[in-house]
Structures are given as C-alpha cells and as structure tokens.
C-alpha cells in the first residue's frame, strides 16, 4: 500500500496544529516520523485516519482519496492505526479483543487469523481468557499489534510503540517490526526518541511545530548535529540502537 499525504492542515479548535504537512510511504517501506513532544506526530496520524478532519490537503492510499471519509473506512481499506499508550478493550478478554477486531473488518482476508497471532505471541494464547485491562504493558502491546494484524492490514501507523516498555520488550518489538516489513507491510513509525526508529527504518521525516523540517535517510538525520539537536539527541554520544533514552 502506498500512502500519500499532501499539504495537510489540521486544527484543534482555533489552534493551527499541522501547517501543511506532506509525506509518502511507499509499499513495504518502514518510515520514521520523528519530532519532539507536541510536534504534531499524533495529530498527523489521526488526520490520516480521519479522527481529526483536516481543513485542507489530501490523504490518499493507492491513489484513492481518503480525506474526509469516516474513520472506519481507513481500517477497512487496510490502514491500521495503533495509538500510543495502553489502548485495548479493557473489559474484554484477550480472545474477545481479537474477535471484535476481526469482525470490525469482516471483509479483509489474508493469512492473519487468531491462530497465527497466537503463534507469533504464545503469551497471548496462554492469556486468551484473561481480561485485557489486567495485562502488563508489554502484553497489551502484543494484543494491540495482534488486534491490528488480525484485520490483515497493508499498512500500520504505529504511534510511539516503545513508550513505557522495558528494554527487552523494545528489542522484541524491533524484531516484530522487521518481520512485518519482510512480509511487505508498510509502516509509519512515530517516535520521540530516534534510537528505535533509526534501527528499523531507512527513511524519516522530522516534524517540528506542525511542519516537516527535514525529510531524508536516517543517516542524514543522524549525521546532522543541527537535526540531532532539533530532536533533542546529545550531539556527541555514539548512537546505539536500543531502548529510548528519554
């Protein structure tokens, strides 16, 4: 799936949050969306899926206009948004969460079903009857990914997937991202700390105050002291892939 965002302007009330953002994600590509606190990463993802209505600009997937469509259309078209934080249906069991997700996009078919998700996350199978609200942060992350995958999406919008995760879980998350990208899922990855994004994506956008400040390879972002400081990464320390520093 190819995503094209063109000159999107979004507002919360009177505040002009996204001031003309353009971005593309090619089929099978993992693209980083970087930016500090409040830069507008989440707002951009919400604008893409229609949770925020852009006042101007357009969002297209595979050349088909998505701007202004109700949010459920994005998911049914194969665009899965995974919001940040502990977002699962907390009163439902793990198995019920997966079933609700599957039924939400009844016409999307593919290789992903509950069995395959339990294969990828054996932990979830053991916990399938547990109420999702009682899962640990890492387990909820698995369920969040499972809920998305069961709809057989073609693109994931991952908002701060590493937030609040233990380092070991972040490493695992990295492996899942690599695996999904090998299966030619496209991924847009929003991160505050560029370490995770750098390890798993090739190309990135740097968002600053609702505008794209830079677009290019992760190396370019990493090698530029100016961009690094814009991201709040210390200028001299050797970058290491791994858990977020902030």
């Amino acid at each position, binding site marked *: 799936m190819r995503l094209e965002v063109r000159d999107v302007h979004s507002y919360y009330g009177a505040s002009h949050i996204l001031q003309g953002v353009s971005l593309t994600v090619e089929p099978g590509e993992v693209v980083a969306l970087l930016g500090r606190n409040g830069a507008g990463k989440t707002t951009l993802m919400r604008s893409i899926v229609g949770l925020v209505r852009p006042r101007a600009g357009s969002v297209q997937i595979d050349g088909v206009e998505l701007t202004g469509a109700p949010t459920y259309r994005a998911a*049914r078209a194969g665009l899965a948004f995974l919001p940040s934080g502990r*977002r*699962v249906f907390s009163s439902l069991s793990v198995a019920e969460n997966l079933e609700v997700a599957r039924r*939400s*996009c009844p016409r999307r078919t593919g290789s992903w079903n509950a069995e395959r998700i339990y294969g990828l996350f054996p932990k979830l199978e053991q916990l399938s009857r547990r109420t999702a609200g009682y899962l640990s942060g890492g387990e909820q992350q698995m369920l969040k990914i499972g809920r998305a995958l069961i709809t057989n999406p073609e693109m994931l919008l991952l908002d701060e997937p590493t937030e609040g995760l233990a380092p070991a879980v972040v490493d695992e998350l990295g492996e899942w991202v690599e695996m999904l990208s090998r299966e030619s899922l496209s991924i847009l990855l929003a991160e505050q700390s560029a370490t995770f994004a750098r390890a798993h994506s090739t190309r990135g956008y740097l968002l600053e105050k609702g505008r794209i400040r830079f677009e290019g390879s992760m190396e370019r972002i990493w090698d530029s002291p100016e961009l690094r400081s814009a991201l709040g990464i210390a200028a001299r320390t050797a970058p290491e892939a791994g858990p977020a520093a902030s």
Partner: protein
Amino acid sequence: MARFLTETIGTLSDAGSLFVVAAGLTLVFGAMRVINLAHGTFYMYGAFVVTTVAGTASGLRFWVAVVVAALVVAVLGAIVQLGVVRFVVGKEPLTQLVATFAVLYILADVALHLWGSGARSVSAPLGVSGTFTLAGAYLPVYDLVIIGTAVLVGLVLWLLLSHTSLGWMIRAAVDDPELLQSGGVNLRRLHLAVFATGALLAALAGAIVTPQISVAPGMDQSIIVSSLLVVVIGGLGSVVGTAFAALIIGIADTVGTLVDPTWASTFMYFAVILVLVVRPWGLFGTPER
C-alpha cells in the same frame, strides 16, 4: 407472613419494570456516553401505544399491542437518534442534556395531541388477571408477568453482552469508542442500534405495566427521575449494577411507604445518598479515569 409475601411480590414487580427501563438508559449511556433525558418518553409512548392498539379487548390483542408498542417506539428511537442525538454524541454533557430535554418536551406535546390529557387504562388480559393465593396471601398474577419479563430481559442482555460478538462490540464501545472506530467499526451504525434498543426496552417496560397503572401525561418525567437514580447508584453503564440498584430503589420505596407514605421518596433518595457516599461511582461502575 401474608403481608410480607404481598409486599415482596409487589416490590419485585416494581423493581422489575424499573430495571427494564433503566437497563435501556444505562446501555445507551455506556455505549454512547449520552444521558438521554427523553428515555422516559419512550416508556410513556410504549404505554400509550398499548392503550391504542389493545383497546378494551383483553385477550391476545394485549400481547400483540405490547410487541407493536416495543417495535413502534424502537423506530421512534431510531428517528430521535438520527434527528437529534447523533449530533450531540461526544459533546459536553450540558449540550446533551438540553438537546434530550427538548426532545422530552416536544414528544410530550405530540403525545398530548395524539392521546389527550386524560388518563387511559388497559385491563390485564385473561389468564394473567386476578389473583392467586400463596401461604394465605392474595397475590396479583400480573406481578409475575412483570417479574418474568424483567428476568427475561436481564438474561437476554447478559447473554448478548457476554456471549455474542455484537455484545462484545457494545462493551468495546463502552471501553474505548475511538479505538473501536479506528478498528473499522461504523460507530454511528452501532449507536443507532444501541439507541433503538434502549428505546425498545423503555417501551417494553411502559407497555407491560399498563394493566397496573393509569396511563397519562407526566409518566415520562416521573420515570426518568427514578431510572436516573437507578442508573447512578448501579454505576453508569453497568447492567448488573442496574438490576441491583432497581431492587434497592424498589425496597427503599416499599419500606418507606410502609413506615410513612409521605416519606417514601425521601427513603429512596436516602438510599441513593448512602450508596454514593460509599461508592461515588455506583455499585458496579468504575471510577472515572
């Protein structure tokens, strides 16, 4: 003993109809985060439609009237949802209250035109009218119909919410509507179904109690007050809580009436205050996150 039985059956019957109304209110609140002040209107319309359809005949036609009332009012609910409530979902509570209060008033006027201001009554159909004796007490057979209806509604709702994927979807809407929507669910369609179901439950309760009450304007406002009390002490959005709360309100009302009829409603509010002091979020609700 006879007295105790009479009061118990009477209380259960009152609590039963209150539960059916309040279950609809709590379902709508849970899944849509809308407090629908016009919910009592659906109860009143259910009762009025029965008086029209059943007429004075008291046979099979009564049961047909109950079903017709529930369905007609479900459609009315759908119209109210599409015409008004849809626009206030997600808005500030005050906006929702004003909008649904307006619906209450408008539909009350419409009812006045359709059915007049006088009281109307329906007699219990043959077979479930009259009394039966148990341990020396004379008990109205029709109370059992109401209790049975309430138990049935409770069971169906429980089965729906805990064992069907539609029910899981409704609970998911309670948990996190935005997540449900971004997962591919047409939330508006789900809201329409939930709101119509809520109206149907209110109408069913209004229809089923007609043989025991006089059907008249004002029913809409008195029932909305007691069902709001039930929903608040049960915990907004919880069906199990609603069942317990309806019982508590029913018992408080009965005990109050026994002690001193002029203080009955004071007893009811006292029960509410007592519950809310101990658990401000209601018996089965969850503290606001």
